[in-house]
């Protein structure tokens, strides 16, 4: 008879402790999963191999104020001819504060006629989005846009 109250108290404490741990885990694990400007710089270096990236030629269309970060329309246009001897080889898009610095890589060729791609992206925070184009002569051109996001993607819990 005397054991009963003790064991329920133990169970209660065990459950309370477990709940506290479960509540703490997302906070602990979400924090380090954020790309830093240093990660952005190293992701860009992986693409350019340390070559200088000039500003210009690239036009990055992202709305400056985004209500829902789960789906953000994005268009990248490179003002450059698509001739066989001189064309855009690839377009790389990066971000500053999502868990990963990469958004997408697009590979093009002279047969594309126009160096323009559109897609929809996710943004986890208000941040800078960078697009870099690689030309067939080996030069790199970039554009960046600062985006304000009111509802962030990625971080919400699944119910």
């Amino acid at each position: 008879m005397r054991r009963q109250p003790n064991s329920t108290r133990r169970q209660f404490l065990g459950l309370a402790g477990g709940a506290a741990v479960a509540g703490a885990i997302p906070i602990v694990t979400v924090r380090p999963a954020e790309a830093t400007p240093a990660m952005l710089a190293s992701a860009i270096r992986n693409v350019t191999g340390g070559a200088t990236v000039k500003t210009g030629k690239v036009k990055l269309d992202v709305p400056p104020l985004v209500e829902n970060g789960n789906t953000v329309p994005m268009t990248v246009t490179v003002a450059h001819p698509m001739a066989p001897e001189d064309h855009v080889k690839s377009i790389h898009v990066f971000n500053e504060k999502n868990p990963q610095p990469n958004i997408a890589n697009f590979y093009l060729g002279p047969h594309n006629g126009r160096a323009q791609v559109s897609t929809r992206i996710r943004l986890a925070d208000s941040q800078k989005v960078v697009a870099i184009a690689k030309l067939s002569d080996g030069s790199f051109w970039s554009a960046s846009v600062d985006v304000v996001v009111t509802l962030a993607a990625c971080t919400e819990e699944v119910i």
Partner: protein
Amino acid sequence: MASALINVPPKAKRGDIIEIKTLMSHIMETGYRHTAAGEVVPRDIITSFTCRFNGNEIFRADLFPAIAANPFITFFTTVTESGKFEFEWIGDSGFSETASASISVE
């Protein structure tokens, strides 16, 4: 379950630059979300999209978790002959889907 929407003009003049729009229904689970119990929801995304025209690759994209659900991708191409566009999406846990569209060039 998975299904694709492709928008390719049925006809074009030789040398025209046409726009191709593609959409593949897919959850694009990032791998960074947690359940209420604190478990990580495993990543399940499309990692690669390829478009071929008459067997030759004309456009390719590497996708990352930062691409929104139901990836929508548009791009341009110059058409010089009639033929068939083939689209292929490859993703995590064996995901693989294809679609095709034909164009007649005069």
